[in-house]
């Protein structure tokens, strides 16, 4: 009885007893959820258009953030460093297409996946060689991101919201909306979706594979930079950041590999749930640090019920 009570009753009682604290927890979860969603989005785009599971997405985040900070360290003004970093990410996309993807076209998926691991290792080496391996501080204030925090007082308690988190959320929303509009309304976006649906047919109507691949990897690069800035502002820029890419895996399992909506909802859901679980169940009952595994457990449970993920594309099959 005692344990049942502490699992099923006490946590909820705590939530109601201190709603302001609960809000704080949800907000914190939401912010990390936005980051997970962004990373997952990078995966989804590349997977949709080329069926490649891009293991390098995590290191691209680090590389983009490093380039940005590195450029600034070398005296480039922050606001100029952003477009310059985008240029670097563009050339990275071109290089990956030319050197890695084009020679491997039509090879089994697993070979392309291994190639992205190769890209990861290469980028780690390149990043360390050029910018050094030590941790760096994200140039948050130089980029004009406010660093203060707002105190709100709902339910007579108080919730503190950092302004850079708000910027991150707003920025992510803008990025995602722009991406969705691009995918659904533009010619290139349509071609990306077409390529995801039927590779051969896309070729047959004259959609150029290399153009689309460069485009998709470049978009993934833009997303990586956005993620890098936001995450870097919270935790500093280091190669350890790469492991957050692994957090994208449960998000993808939850949301489905092909679904943009899935990546967003999955990311937010995992971000919020793991935080709430950690605070109300993990710490009092399991000794804490449940965030390390909670997302994977959740993904596993979802996989048992819906193998294609919550939002995975249903395979349309006519009988």
């Amino acid at each position, binding site marked *: 009885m005692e344990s049942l009570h502490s699992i099923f009753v006490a946590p909820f009682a705590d939530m109601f007893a201190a709603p302001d604290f609960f809000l704080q927890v949800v907000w914190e979860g939401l912010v990390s959820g936005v980051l997970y969603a962004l990373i997952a989005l990078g995966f989804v785009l590349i997977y949709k258009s080329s069926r490649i599971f891009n293991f390098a997405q995590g290191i691209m985040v680090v590389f983009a953030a490093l380039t940005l900070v590195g450029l600034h360290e070398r005296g480039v003004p922050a606001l100029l460093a952003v477009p310059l970093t985008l240029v670097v990410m563009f050339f990275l996309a071109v290089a990956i297409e030319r050197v890695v993807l084009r020679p491997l*076209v*039509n090879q089994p998926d697993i070979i392309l996946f291994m190639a992205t691991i190769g890209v990861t290792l290469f980028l780690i080496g390149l990043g360390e060689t050029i910018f050094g391996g030590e941790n760096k501080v994200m140039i948050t204030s130089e980029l004009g991101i406010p660093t203060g925090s707002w105190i709100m007082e709902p339910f007579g308690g108080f919730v503190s919201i950092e302004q850079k988190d708000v910027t991150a959320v707003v920025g992510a929303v803008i990025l995602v909306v722009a991406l969705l509009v691009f995918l659904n309304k533009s*010619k290139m976006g*349509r*071609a990306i*979706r*077409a390529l*995801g*649906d*039927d*590779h*051969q*047919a*896309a*070729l*047959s*109507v*004259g*959609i*150029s594979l290399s153009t689309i691949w460069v485009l998709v990897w470049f978009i993934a690069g833009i997303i990586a930079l956005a993620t890098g800035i936001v995450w870097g502002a919270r935790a500093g820029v280091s190669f350890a950041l790469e492991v957050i890419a692994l957090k994208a895996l449960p998000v993808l399992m939850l949301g489905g590999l092909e679904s943009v909506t899935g990546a967003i909802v999955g990311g937010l859901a995992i971000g919020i749930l793991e935080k709430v679980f950690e605070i109300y169940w993990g710490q009092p009952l399991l000794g804490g640090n449940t965030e390390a595994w909670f997302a994977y457990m959740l993904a596993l449970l979802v996989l048992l019920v819906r193998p294609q993920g919550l939002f995975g*594309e249903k395979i*349309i099959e*006519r009988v």
Partner: protein
Amino acid sequence: MTPTTAPVPDTAKPILAVNNIEVIYDHVILVLKGVSLSVPRGGITAILGANGAGKTTTLKAISNLLHAERGEVTKGSILFEGQEVQSLSPNTLVRRGCIQVMEGRHCFGHLSVEDNLMTGAFTRKDGAAAIRDDLELVYQYFPRLRERRTSQAGYTSGGEQQMTAIGRALMSRPKMILLDEPSMGLAPQLVEEIFEIVKKLNDEQGVSFLLAEQNTNVALRYAKYGYILESGRVVLDGEAKALRENDDVKEFYLGVGGEGRKSFRDVKHYKRRKRWLA
């Protein structure tokens, strides 16, 4: 692509000439053993033959989609409008006006019918207005697609998917369409409807067609010229009318017996007389 004026067919120079090509898959499997054919400008030419005869491979060799299946043209040449096209990407070829409609439709299942059609305009650079006009034109040829424009292509019927695939190819403003098995899996009535539209497109838009078909009967009624392929070789070719009258074609491809019905004994001792292969 204006509905009324068809360009005067320049019969002197074929729009497509395939000279003695050999295709090998995966470096080992020899599929085409020297196929030659030509399509006159403004013509409808059919490649006929059974499963595995090499019809699809021939079309893919022309449209350069073979590479995606690890196939390779190892001998011979393919000229589109007098120019060698071997080294061109499918993208460039579509730009030049030669597009393939693949066997089994291959619509983009999760895209709406209209989005499917619009992907066909990927290579075009002549502006949104012209593309809109052509979309309207495609809807005129395929009124049924207009009704289904917002449905996901994956959920439309086989006939509608075939129409979508042909319409999508039309959106690239092709001079020539390589049409692979348009009749596959369709009801006879629909097959007739699709071929009527092909003929109309040929008459009104001046689009040349090279079609691969197993349905010899229908294909020979709409095509002007035909090639019969058997295990990677052209075994017979001629005017469609002549082929329809040919005894061997009648017997092997049209399913019409020669003189009267055959007795069971005949069937038992039946041996294929491939005169032309001997």
